[in-house]
């Protein structure tokens, strides 16, 4: 654990920016948000809305 890793070259003049997609994948809380929002909206909310909209029999 104590082997503090210092990626070579990281602290030199040029530091390559981390691409946005990688930043997203490195951010568990953003992922958590997506992983809850997507199914909540597309599955639960839309599904329950359709059920509620079922008409009353004549």
């Amino acid at each position, binding site marked *: *654990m*104590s*082997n503090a890793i210092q990626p070579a070259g990281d602290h030199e003049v040029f530091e390559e920016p981390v691409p946005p997609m*990688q930043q997203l*994948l490195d951010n568990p809380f953003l992922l958590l948000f997506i992983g*809850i929002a997507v*199914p909540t909206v597309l599955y639960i909310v839309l*599904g*329950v809305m359709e059920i509620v909209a079922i008409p009353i029999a004549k």
Partner: protein
Amino acid sequence: MAVNRMFRTCPASGLVFHEPAENLMKANAVAAAVSLLVGGILAIGVTLTRWQAVHMLPPDSFYLFLTAHGLNMLVFWIIFFEMAILYFTSSTLLKCRLAAPGIGWVAFWMMVVGALMNNYAVFRGDSSVMFTAYAPMGAHPTFYLGLILFAVGALISCFVFFATLVVAKSEKTYNGSVPLVTFGAITAAIIAVFTIASGAIILVPTFLWSVGFIDHIDSLVYRTVFWAFGHSSQQINVSAHVAVWYAIAAIVFGAKPLSEKVSRTAFFLYICFLQLASAHHLLADPGLTSNWKIFNTSYAMYLAVLASMVHGLTVPGSIEVAQRQKGYTNGLFEWLRKAPWGNPAFSGMFLSLIGFGFLGGISGVMMGTEQLNLLIHNTLYVPGHFHATVVVGTTLAFMSLTYFLIPVLFRRQMMFAGMAPWQPYVFGLGMMGVSLFLMGAGTLGVPRRHWDIAFAGNPLPYEFPGSAWLMMALAGISSIFAFVGGAMYLAITVGSVFFGKKIETPGFKEISAQQGMVGRPQPAAAPADTTVIAGHQGGVGAGGMCMVAPGTFVLAIVFLVSFVLYYFINWKYLSTVWPLR
């Protein structure tokens, strides 16, 4: 990071364990094994009753056993084990102290109490409602309360996991991105949070209904929200066992993911879309539109299936690359033939991969197709399918991981080391038989959760074809192999954990689970090759193909061909059924 006395480095694997995390892993793993034992004993009653020639139990006990089997297996065994995996992938793989172990213990005990309470409700005899507990069929209040307690405990564990990620990041116990296996565990934990939240949304009102505070639970809303819980929890399993596949490929072969980008993007597709597939439970239900059904059941255009197909390629692909680098370069399949088939950690994992893909994956996509679902909805095809996914896939993957964990985590030598290499085959092949024959019976229309397909004493019985009876008998016979395999597993793990020879100092070489294992990974060596990306670019081509993993590609094509054929055979079958609109 400051030196912490509570860490130890495993001499054999080089893994770093934080003692409080280690204890939590052990406790969760033991609780998991106990649930597996209970569920396994119940499975004997279930299968030997459905095997009509034996027809062991009377109907009330059959339905009781089936309810308890589903819960102990699907919920308690799997989720306890997953909690152990979450602690392992966060604390151990990130070499980080576990955040808030005390809360981890609170969560653990909530789960234990919840599981006991739920089992109590079922064994009382008035809650044989199956694990689905579809309202308005009601169970005893403690049934729901137990499930809710268990689920909340699991949710708290997930937060301990996320908190550990935060600690690791801020204490810089690793650099850059988390390991791929941890990323898979993050995927599982994210899906778990959604799953448990959905469970709360539906189980809390149902509990209130069972004690009389609410007077009506709508059956269609119940089924819709229930499956956001019930099916998403299967998706936790998928993410977790795919992570375990990667872990075992790494541990046994030192395999490196073909590309981090592809594997992680595949997990990302899981995070976004996997949970939508809960809709495939509602394809035969009224009222929901085809738009909703098609979009959700297909995981948004099968993007999550795509992800599974990617993992199915990259896991064996990375093994192939690692093996080829070791010199197994002849032909397409030398790398596979020369794999350590006697190492249960590997053989279990590979059978899990094959069984999950060929049996579970293909049948799952077939069933989840809007129109095809009509053919098999609620038949034994469904349990057939999920015994391929959750038993051959998840359970066997977890079993193979324990072979690695016994020496490393429990620091015990494996007992019955001569038996261990056989266990994955006996259990895996037996279970593949169970799945196949249940699917066969389901194709012939045999209903699931049904005590008597002979309809004895019924004035208007239905006579199932002889082939259906044969299928049930074959499923019964295969299940005997599966029981034996399950008993072997429990004997080995329980034996080793409680009575195995303690490992004091590195004395690992005799243990068969270690066979074919690479030496300790060099944690610090990694950053040196920052610039040399894609270490296996110079991969070995075979037969003139310029691919790093040609053998795996051939296997993948075989898979695809089976998939396409089976898929269209079912459409052909559907086209002969009565027109319906």
